């Protein structure tokens, strides 16, 4: 049986996404430019160059962060 979707948590919120996505695909679907965000997957920071090679898997906890105003 083929699994069509996986459940993940992005920035603290549960989401269901298509199965077989890479992290780079996920960013594209979210309309985020890879150069403007940093991705942490299951507490591990991902190198930008590796985003296209890393799959999004069931249960992944993904953090997408960027710079905002601060002191």
């Amino acid at each position, binding site marked *: 049986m083929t699994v069509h979707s996986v459940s993940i948590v992005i920035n603290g919120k549960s989401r269901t996404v298509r199965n077989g996505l890479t992290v780079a695909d996920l960013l594209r679907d979210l309309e985020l430019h890879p150069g403007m965000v940093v991705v942490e997957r299951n507490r591990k920071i991902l190198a*930008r160059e590796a985003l296209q090679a890393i799959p999004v898997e069931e249960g992944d906890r993904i953090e*997408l962060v*960027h710079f*905002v*105003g*601060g*002191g």
Partner: protein
Amino acid sequence: MVRDTRGDLPFVMGDHAFTSRLIVGTGKYRTNDEMVTAIRASGAEMVTVAVRRVDLDRRREEGILHHLSPDEFFLLPNTAGCYTAEDALRYARLGRAAGLNDWVKLEVIGDERTLLPDTAATLAAAVELVADGFKVMAYTNDDLITAMRLEDAGCVAVMPLASPIGSGLGVVNPYYIREIKRRLTVPVIVDAGVGTASDACVTMEQGVDGVLMNTAIAAASDPVGMARAMKLAVLAGREAYLAGRMAAREIAVPSSPTTGMLDREHG
């Protein structure tokens, strides 16, 4: 020979030389345009930024890199909002992964009411971050011993507070700030507590290398005007420190000659 003080030397932190002794934050501005205009008016070269989740629902507020160019400013990621060394390490590494530089403004808070730093956790985090290759600028209390330990840990700058973050109370303990500056070799930047231009001037008169502020500019009625005032105040305080102030005394001393006076009229 009369010294020309117009040419204050740049101060060096890590592998960078900075001409402006004013470092500014980017938080709490009403608009991004106002932030950018104010920062330019301040003359600051180094600018702090925070690491936060992308808002996936609204995306109304875009990341700050859409407004501030790393080519124009040295962007310094902070660990603001962290209450443990572990969290600070996580935020520092996320900030570094953005690829701008390997610097961090380390901040580990110990108390919500005062936002005073947890100095033990700050020191523990500083040791780990330095070992991990970071250039660490450590926010700390106005405590000499912690400041010395942070220098020993390899921080590129030690940043004691003037008074609590966002309080605008000015320098509550100028003696401690002076003593920290006297005893450390790395640059000492006073971070937090400045409320208005006179506070910035007094801060620089203590002899420190620089001052970091955010709310004093962002929360002014006219942030751009206050940014200009802060630029001038930091310059004025620095020049006054270099010039060496006169001794204070609690009695008047005439400025004009007391000799050569005409005979007094006696009524």
